């Protein structure tokens, strides 16, 4: 049982996420090629590569709180990703950083992080669940994580969020998109997973990976 996650975890999370985005870059891009404009994987890879470069530089040494790590992620994604995903992920991490500005997160803090991120995206993109966007994954993450928080295991909350996001991403497959580029395709958008929902599931799975590394150590 992991009761608390600290700034080191957040740094590991971001590094894991960057590695996973790199590994799955072409899959994400292919999903976006099918129902968007074929750049989602490349956009995120460019952004997370820049985040890792900043973590490796002088900015990376002074990060005492989870919130500070997430704020660095937010500003870097906002100035390097572009497209729809840049401001959306940027806002998610920015809002998440505002509720996590302390050295250690407990189970409730993890839930607050995920909730703030999801709300940030929904408010920025004016999307609701069912529009076939990353909101579907974030929303499912929050729904799944909420009931687990009372047990007090931060890792379990994170795991529930990640599992929820994965299920939410899969659930976008049959949907017809009504937000973002995929909406231009109308019914032809059904049958393909939303790339942003897919990357959301990846990013939250990376958070679990990073927490498990802490658990083992």
């Amino acid at each position, binding site marked *: 049982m992991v009761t608390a996650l600290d700034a080191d975890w957040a740094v590991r999370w971001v590094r894991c996420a960057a590695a996973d985005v790199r590994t799955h870059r072409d899959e994400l891009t292919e999903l976006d090629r099918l129902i968007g404009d*074929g750049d989602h994987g490349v956009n995120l890879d460019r952004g997370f590569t820049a985040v890792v470069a900043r973590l490796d530089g002088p900015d990376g040494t002074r990060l005492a709180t989870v919130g500070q790590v997430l704020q660095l992620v937010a500003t870097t994604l906002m100035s390097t990703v572009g497209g729809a995903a840049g401001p959306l992920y940027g806002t998610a991490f920015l809002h998440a950083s505002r509720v996590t500005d302390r050295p250690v997160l407990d189970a409730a803090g993890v839930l607050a992080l995920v909730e703030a991120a999801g709300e940030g995206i929904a408010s920025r993109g004016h999307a609701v669940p069912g529009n076939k966007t990353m909101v579907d994954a974030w929303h499912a993450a929050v729904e799944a994580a909420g009931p687990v928080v009372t047990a007090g295991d931060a890792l379990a909350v994170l795991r529930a969020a990640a599992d929820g996001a994965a299920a939410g991403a899969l659930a976008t497959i049959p949907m017809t998109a009504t937000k973002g580029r995929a909406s231009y395709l109308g019914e032809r958008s059904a049958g393909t997973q939303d790339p942003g929902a897919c990357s959301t599931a990846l990013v939250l799975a990376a958070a679990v990976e990073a927490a498990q590394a802490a658990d083992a150590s």
Partner: protein
Amino acid sequence: MKKLLDDPAEAVTDALQGLAAAHPDLLTVHHEPTYVQRAGGTPPGHVGVVSGGGSGHEPLHTGFVGSGMLDAAVPGAVFTSPTADQVAAALKAADGGAGVLAIVKNYTGDVLNFETAVELAQLDGVEVASVLVNDDVAVEDSMYTAGRRGVAGTLFVEKVAGAAAARGDSLEAVAGLARRAVGRVRTMGVALSACTVPHVGRPSFDLPDDEVEIGIGIHGEPGRHRIPAGGARDIATRLVDAVLDDLAPAGGEQVLLFVNGMGGTPLSELYGTYARAREVVEARGVRVVRSLVGSYVTSLEMQGASVTVAVLDDELTALWDAPVRTPALTW
């Protein structure tokens, strides 16, 4: 995929280097963040006109920087909206003291990044107005879509706004004219082949040899539906009909007819398509008084074209005719 490129990740930067070197009299390129600015900057007291968006649509927008059109343009990665800090830097640079008009094509990414950029520029004391271009009739403007896209009609809006700024109009007046232009311009496009984004390395969609995509955007995204490949007459008729059905002219209007190539279409085919399109427009009682034919709002090397009709009035005609000096549009 074969392209005249080196590192795909550097393709936008390499092209900007060439643009700057070829047109030092017209523009300069700034880096970190990247934007293109008119040589000498916005004339003091004039409204700055700024646009931008993903790269891959050249000459839009960077090729329209100069006098009489854009004071600055912000190129993102290929088909990817520029970041908010790029846009904010361009908005600030283009302020000649009379405020700045941001011309935004209606895509989620562009809208989100420009929104943030406008807030950032306003924090720095720059007065900014925005106008959203959404001329693509292929997309239904309903609660089931992100709204109509901005496509080739953007050129018309940029020309009108740039000419209004050049004659010394206020920000309010320039924005008003740009909105009037948006309200009167409509476009519909067709793709004969897909394009290949450099870092993707394969075509953006798969299209059988005997079909064309009707209602495409300018990002290599598939269109609304596929039809058997017809001739220029068939395609021009479909495009013009869609555009005019939406504009619903009463008859007797004077219009600009703009046949735009998607990047890989020979000029001769564009002129042939223009001839067919013009016949259809005039058969509906509308008079073509201004024309533009060429590849101005492109999707990399995509083969295809779009037809744009803009309903003119005396003021819009005068603004269209006003002098312009940019790499891609000069008269």
